[in-house]
């Protein structure tokens, strides 16, 4: 099993380098990047200074080597707009994103599983129809609009929850709700259909033949098998969550990585965007690795094949 993890880590690193090259080229493909960075009120010297600071006057391969060696030293470059080391800015923003992301992920996943299983076990009941409608609606309405409407209703009219920043726990309610809204419909629908497939199998019929109470049939026998196919989508869902985080942080003015990225894009702060994309890529790799390991934990046949 350890050997398998090692190979997967190696592969992730290769993929990471691939992404680095992609990002590196993407930002330089449009001819002279400085023209992008130049905001109107910049003097010629400032532009030259940035040009030099970015090392853009050197040939491409050398630039890439420079970029790689900096990365190796953990130096993510300095922000053009704020003249602060990028790693420092990310150091402030990342914890805030996690403070929003982790609770949302936990609430979202458990809710998705509970509702998905509820819908599957009470097929065609009002519960099932209701949950299906919620899922269909959820996958149709744009997340940012729902968040704005939530602000309109709960903040401006009802004054239940504050908006903007993350000072008090109450500030967490609407942003977390928005994040949960992003992940709930898709996952819920998948859990329901995966559960339905498992409930049709022969070994579930055999579990009932054994005389097991329906609770045990569902929570012990069906659930563990029904976890397998949603797991495959977890990687995709994680990508959706990160996109959702960017939007949520922008709407609720949440000082996390998402808002940092948006500001960097508008401010043409090119090293910051580059660093954020890399860090997200690492998070994505880690997530895929976790999903693979979880696979082996749930399905003994995969564990057996990999050892």
């Amino acid at each position, binding site marked *: 099993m350890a050997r398998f993890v090692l190979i997967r880590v190696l592969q992730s690193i290769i*993929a990471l380098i691939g992404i680095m090259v992609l990002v590196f080229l993407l930002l330089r493909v449009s001819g002279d990047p400085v023209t992008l960075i130049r905001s109107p009120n910049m003097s010629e010297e400032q532009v030259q200074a940035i040009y030099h600071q970015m090392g853009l006057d050197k040939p491409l391969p050398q630039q890439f080597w420079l970029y790689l060696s900096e990365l190796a030293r953990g130096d993510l470059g300095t922000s053009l707009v704020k003249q602060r080391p990028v790693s420092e800015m990310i150091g402030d923003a990342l914890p805030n994103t996690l403070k929003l992301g982790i609770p949302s992920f936990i609430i979202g996943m458990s809710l998705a599983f509970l509702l998905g299983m509820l819908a599957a076990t009470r097929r065609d009941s009002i519960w099932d129809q209701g949950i299906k409608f919620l899922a269909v609606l959820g996958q149709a309405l*744009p997340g940012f609009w729902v968040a704005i409407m939530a602000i309109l209703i709960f903040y401006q009219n009802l004054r239940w929850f504050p908006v903007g920043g993350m000072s008090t726990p109450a500030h967490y309610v609407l942003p977390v709700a928005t994040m949960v809204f992003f992940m709930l419909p898709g996952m819920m629908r998948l859990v329901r259909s995966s559960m339905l497939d498992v409930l049709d199998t022969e070994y579930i019929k055999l579990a009932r033949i054994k005389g097991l109470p329906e609770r045990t049939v569902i929570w012990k026998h069906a659930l563990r098998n029904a976890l397998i196919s949603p797991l495959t989508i977890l990687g995709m869902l994680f990508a959706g969550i990160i996109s959702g985080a960017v939007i949520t942080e922008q709407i609720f003015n949440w000082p996390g990585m998402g808002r940092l990225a948006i500001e960097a894009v*508008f401010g043409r702060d090119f090293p910051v965007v580059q660093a954020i994309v890399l860090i997200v890529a690492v998070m994505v790799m880690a997530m895929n690795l976790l999903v693979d390991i979880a696979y082996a934990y749930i399905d003994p046949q995969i564990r057996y094949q990999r050892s």
Partner: protein
Amino acid sequence: MPEPNTNVGAMTVRKAGGLSRGVRVLRNLGIIIPLVVITLLVLTAIFAPLLAPHNPTENNMLARRLPPAFMTGGSADHLLGTDKLGRDNLSRLIYGGRVSLSVSLLAIAITASIGTFLGITAGYLGGRIDGFIMRVTDMALSFPALLLAMLLQIGIGPGFFTVVVALSILGWAGYARLIRGEALKLRNSDFVAQARIIGASPLRIMFRHIFPNVINSLLVIMTLQVGMMILMESALSYLGIGIPAPTPSWGSMVADGRGDLDSAWWISLFPGIAIGLVVLSGNFVGDWLRDKLDPRLRQL
């Protein structure tokens, strides 16, 4: 071993879904409404210039933030009121629909063709090619498209084309993964083996046997993708990295209204409803198509 047909009743039951008569009527109704909405969208997109009462980008400082006609202070000239620059909301909504639809359809065309081509090659040829394509597909599937859109925004600057590229650069992966699964199953199926036995060429097999049996899944995914792409485009436009101003897009309209939530909340309200309605209809048509053509695709 004959086909194990243990409970004949149950099998017919499951296929028919065991729905009572009432639900079946609802289901038929359920497909007429979404189809009507979609056709309406397409028509307004095509005939936008004729339908829109005003020029969507013409500022009118005198009539700023007018409420919709049916509210107090609203004017019949601007049925849905005006935004903070006095531009007519209804006209922007109509032109916004055109932009969203064209971006989505273009992106779907690109992603569907790339995805299907890679899917069939990986599924039918198998081996190392399959391994490589699937590895890249898994990577593309798990990478947040929004971030890549940001990169593109800086890399090649804002614009209609940038949004299409942003939507397509990762969008093909969904098709590739699903079509590859289908092609793999078909390659090992008896009737493809039979075609090889009678000497049919690989090309004939691809077009006469593999492709016709893949079209169903393709149609279902494409219909469901309409909604997905519109949602994605509007999100990009909302964040200001999608369709550049002043061209109207539903996403950017919601963003414009964000600031005036307390006074002119309707500016953000209507585009959101439009997006929701269209995407909901797209998904309903997709689900209906899937039930009709290929029930196995349920988990989509």
